[in-house]
């Protein structure tokens, strides 16, 4: 059970950044795909180059929260630029090259921008970029209402990323959605680790549960020793006694399984958002764990009842009848 999380780039036509664009409104349309609940982040961006003195600068327009959500590894000194404000976040290389720090101002193509944050070195192209709020960048590049690319982050454990990219292409004609498997790797690993840990925890609980059932059944055999003696005097044989105790454990296991199942489902819906930052809806949970966990609970409790049942069948009826 390893939830897969992927990031998908949505360039339009060929992947020539800055020349071909998609309407900004496409970012809402992405939410019409069947697996829309698996979408984590939708981050529209515009790329462009601007002249600054003798050099060209790479400008990225973005929606700060979405981009930061996608790039968890970002470490920002200062803050992220606010939507529509004339603010800029500088990549580390750009900042040192232009000798700018938080609070300074830079004027590009006649637009004055306040440096509100500087990115720690990432080792990627981000180090050489200037990050502006999406709409500010559109004004700067003179391309209102369009974006170059939409990065889509999705978390889904049962649907391959290809399915989601296909769904996006169906929903947005003329758009090419290419699966890019990276970006939220760290979160994926965390989810995977949690899943493994849960499995370990579940196995321990299963063993402890078995011991509990066996203990309860042994106590029950002991408590009902007289009853067992009466049954034997009425002509019950070992098979009858096995049947009685196995049936009892079957009922226990079934009830326990059912309760456990629904407590588990409910807690995953309640706890999921808390720990994993994932919204989980009852409707989307896979169904197979329900019969699986009930079956497991029944099998466990049956196994645990065999020894107590055997003990019951070995009771001396005369001794049992004499106990008070």
């Amino acid at each position, binding site marked *: 059970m390893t939830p897969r999380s992927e990031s998908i780039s949505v360039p339009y036509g060929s992947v020539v950044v800055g020349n071909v664009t998609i309407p900004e409104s496409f970012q809402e349309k992405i939410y019409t795909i069947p697996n829309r609940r698996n979408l984590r982040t939708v981050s529209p961006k515009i790329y462009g180059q601007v002249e600054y003195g003798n050099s060209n600068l790479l400008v990225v327009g973005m929606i700060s929260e979405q981009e930061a959500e996608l790039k968890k590894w970002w470490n920002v000194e200062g803050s992220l630029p606010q939507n529509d404000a004339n603010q800029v976040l500088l990549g580390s290389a750009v900042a040192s090259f232009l000798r700018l720090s938080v609070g300074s101002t830079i004027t590009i193509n006649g637009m004055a921008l306040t440096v509100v944050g500087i990115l720690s070195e990432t080792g990627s192209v981000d180090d050489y970029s200037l990050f502006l709020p999406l709409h500010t960048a559109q004004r700067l590049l003179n391309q209102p209402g369009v974006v170059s690319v939409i990065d889509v982050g999705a978390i889904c454990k049962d649907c391959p990323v290809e399915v989601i990219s296909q769904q996006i292409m169906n929903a947005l004609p003329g758009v090419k959605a290419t699966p890019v498997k990276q970006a939220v790797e760290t979160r994926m690993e965390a989810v995977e680790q949690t899943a493994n840990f849960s499995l370990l925890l579940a196995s321990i609980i299963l063993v402890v549960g078995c011991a509990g059932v066996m203990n309860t059944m042994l106590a029950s055999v002991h408590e009902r020793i007289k009853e067992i003696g009466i049954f034997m*005097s*009425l002509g*019950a044989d070992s098979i009858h006694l096995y049947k009685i105790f196995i049936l009892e454990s079957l009922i226990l296991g079934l009830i326990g399984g059912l309760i456990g199942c629904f407590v588990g489902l409910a807690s995953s819906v309640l706890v999921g958002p808390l720990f994993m930052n994932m919204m989980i809806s009852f409707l989307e949970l896979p169904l197979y764990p329900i019969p699986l966990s009930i079956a497991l609970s029944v099998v466990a409790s049956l196994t645990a009842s065999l020894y107590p049942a055997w003990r019951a069948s070995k009771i001396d009826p005369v001794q049992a009848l004499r106990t008070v």
Partner: protein
Amino acid sequence: MIVMKDVTKIYEMGSAQIFALNGVNLEVEDGDFLAVMGPSGSGKSTLLYTIGTLLTPTKGNVTINGKSIYKMKPRQRAKFRRENIGFIFQTFELIPYLTALENVMLPLYLSGVAISKHEDIAKEALRKVGLAHRALHKPTELSGGEQQRVSIARGIVNNPRILLADEPTGNLDQKTGKEIIQLLHKLNDRDELTVIMVTHDPEKACLSNMVLQMIDGRVVEDEQRTYRKRR
């Protein structure tokens, strides 16, 4: 017919050996009403449970209707017990969470009688002991005498040939005890049911057609056939 030949039951208590039964020879014919008397620890109950196929003797042979019951495998013996022997006890031993009717139905479940017939057969048995009107009561809602009647109904519901009673009146007052003994005699008379009853009470014992006195695991007095009524 029940035949016991040189039946001995020894309990090991540390290094000591206790002879609960010591070379008992006994014949009980079909339709007999046998009372077993004797002081505590004389082996009365041991004798009863040995006849009842519940207690394997250390030595000797017990046959019922020609079948050597302790040579059977345990499950065969349980089946034999279901079909041929009914028990009643001093403290009734009804299952407290079941109604009178359900208690009487229990042996039918064990015998594999068709479930649809259980209720009718059990009601008929309750009617025989005069308790049809209390069928749906739990044991705690019944008097001692009534509980013992339910217990008798449970003992006879499978139509056994032998009814074994361990001090059936020990927990009842004089009058109720007498009624229970009368009921046992009625079943003995009408259904040719062999009854073997362990008792302390000489008055109740002398109503039977055969009285056995036991001391230290031996049968010391055998007033056989003295009171035999018929045959």
